[in-house]
């Protein structure tokens, strides 16, 4: 053994083998098996039926990731410029929701977005609906917010935003301020400094932020179940259904999970290549 300390990695290796490698191998095995135990490709040919679910999952996850990026990047930039004390407090506030249970937070959004929920009651109280009805001659009693794709995306953004902010922030805060001064000294205005120095140097943070938001968003089932009301079936829900409940079919579920995993890995690989390309593109 080269390093005596590597002995201490032993438990982790065992843990990984038991709970990551073996389950993945089981999924692969199940995906290629039929109910009677023989080899089959039927599970994969059936996936075609669920193409809309795939598309919707990737679409909503993409949308949520994009929104997280658009919110997270400016926040990270602004935060990195503040004093150390302010940064600590702001970071704590950003992390604060994560100290509460994930399901609890999502339930809270349910009661906010419901037809008779907090927001709609607030709108009603300030007379918003009366106003709209009197202007347009309609008869609106509430806005439909819950059980829409928008609600699902909102849930994703709300839950995963810190995962976008943290990596971007930690890269930007370490950015050498002298590089920015150097760029300004060489004739770059603020926009050029951002485009040619800050952005390319913060790209590693952006890429890991995207990964950390996109992956859980594309496979979530709790958010779509609670805020989408089962009408917005996503891959996570599809897979869950195959393992629990009436549609019990772990073979199909495994196949779906495997395909999703492969698509995600391909997406990430392409994005990372694109990221490297981006740095090159800036060079060119």
């Amino acid at each position, binding site marked *: 053994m080269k390093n005596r300390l590597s002995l201490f990695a032993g438990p982790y290796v065992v843990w990984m083998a038991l709970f990551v490698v073996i389950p993945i191998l089981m999924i692969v095995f199940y995906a290629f098996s039929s109910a009677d135990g023989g080899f089959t490709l039927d599970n994969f040919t059936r996936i075609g039926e669920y193409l809309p679910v795939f598309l919707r999952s990737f679409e909503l996850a993409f949308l949520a990731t994009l929104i997280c990026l658009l919110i997270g990047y400016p926040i990270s930039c602004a935060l990195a410029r503040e004093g150390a004390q302010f940064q600590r407090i702001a970071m704590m506030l950003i992390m604060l929701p994560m100290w509460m249970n994930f399901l609890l937070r999502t339930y809270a959004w349910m009661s906010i977005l419901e037809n008779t929920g907090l927001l709609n009651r607030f709108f009603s109280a300030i007379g918003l609906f009366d106003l709209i009805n009197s202007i347009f001659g309609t008869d609106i009693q509430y806005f439909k917010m819950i059980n829409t794709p928008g609600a699902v995306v909102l849930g994703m953004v709300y839950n995963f935003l810190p995962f976008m902010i943290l990596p971007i922030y930690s890269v930007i805060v370490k950015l*050498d301020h*002298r*590089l920015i*001064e*150097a*760029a*300004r*000294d*060489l*004739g*770059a*205005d603020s926009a*050029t400094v951002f485009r*040619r*120095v800050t952005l*390319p*140097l913060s790209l590693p943070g952006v890429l890991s932020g995207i990964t950390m938001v996109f992956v859980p968003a594309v496979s979530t089932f709790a958010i779509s179940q609670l805020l989408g009301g089962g009408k917005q079936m996503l891959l996570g829900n599809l897979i869950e259904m195959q393992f629990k409940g009436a549609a019990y079919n772990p073979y199909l579920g495994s196949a779906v999970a495997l395909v999703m995993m492969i698509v995600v890995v391909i997406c990430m690989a392409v994005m990372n290549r694109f990221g490297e390309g981006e*740095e090159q593109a*800036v*060079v060119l």
Partner: protein
Amino acid sequence: MAKELIRLSDCFVQFDDDIILDHINLYINDKEFLTLLGPSGCGKTTTLRLIGGFLKPTSGEVLFDGERINDVPPHKRAVNTVFQKYALFPHLNVFENIAFGLRIPQAAPGEKKKRKLPESEIQQRVMEMLEIVNLKGFEKRSIASLSGGQQQRVAIARALVNQPKVLLLDEPLGALDMRLRKDMQNELKRIQQTMGITFIYVTHDQEEALAMSDTVVVMDGGHIQQIGTPEDIYNEPKNAFVADFIGESNIIDGIMRADGVVEIFNRKFQCLDKGFEKDEPVDVVIRPEDVDIVPEDQGQLRGTVTSVTFKGMQYDIIVDFYGFKWLIQTTDFCPVDSRIGIKIDPDGIHVMKKSQYSGMFGDYSSYSEEYEEISDAEYDPEAEEEQEDGHEE
């Protein structure tokens, strides 16, 4: 007559309650090599940042070619900077680092529309620059793969390729080892002369300042202590601070008895200085190399050798005169505890007015500690940086 290019007029800079620059007045001529010299925290980097545009004076004016540029941002000034530790872009290779400024569309004089330089011109100018700084063939290399000296050259090329009227250099050789520093000093002087532009150079290293500059500005505590040619500064220091900071010196209390006569240790010495009041208390500077050692009975002053250090070219000896310790440089070996006499020629004695620095320097009784403080090998650029960065928040 040289043409004036930059003028700092009554510039005052304050951060919170700290006064960094206290009403500085300074002008810089075109094509001049001017050095701002001083210990850390003296305000030299702040002065450079005023000219670079990274800082606005709390009060006072920065003039460029007669125009007030207080509010002109750095990217619109005809000035480029070589930063301490270079600040090269890690995501760009050598060529692209140098081409950075050229790739930014600029409006030609008298024109509104910004235009990009054609790629062929960028190519040509970067290649020319690489040749000037002796880095031909390095254009595709990554910054991380370069040595300190090479990074230094890239930083210089990156600034010079924009053809600035003035190049600002902030301790550019601080991170290099001794030999490389000597080479780069010559290199910088050569570049300045070939390009024919103004260099404003910040350093704490007096040797560097004397070797390269046309004009040296010695600063301390946010004040300019003396402005002059290297020879002036060395030979005719204005006060005890300058005398101590530039080279080694013995600074002794004296009394001016008449024009050309100064009294030290109750003995009268001939000197060249005039224009003091009769019996005015003064500081007297005697450079260690201006002292001649003679047999005890022939000396103007007599003392005991307390320490001898071999320095290669000469011996540094510490001699006790009536309880006050002098540093003397000599090629003659004098053993410890021997009694010696000394003679000083009139042009070896420099008389200065008393100042706030009087009595702070000059006694070599704590020789070894003081020597370390002066010696550059002990200098820690990190320490200075922390101190100065603090002011830049």
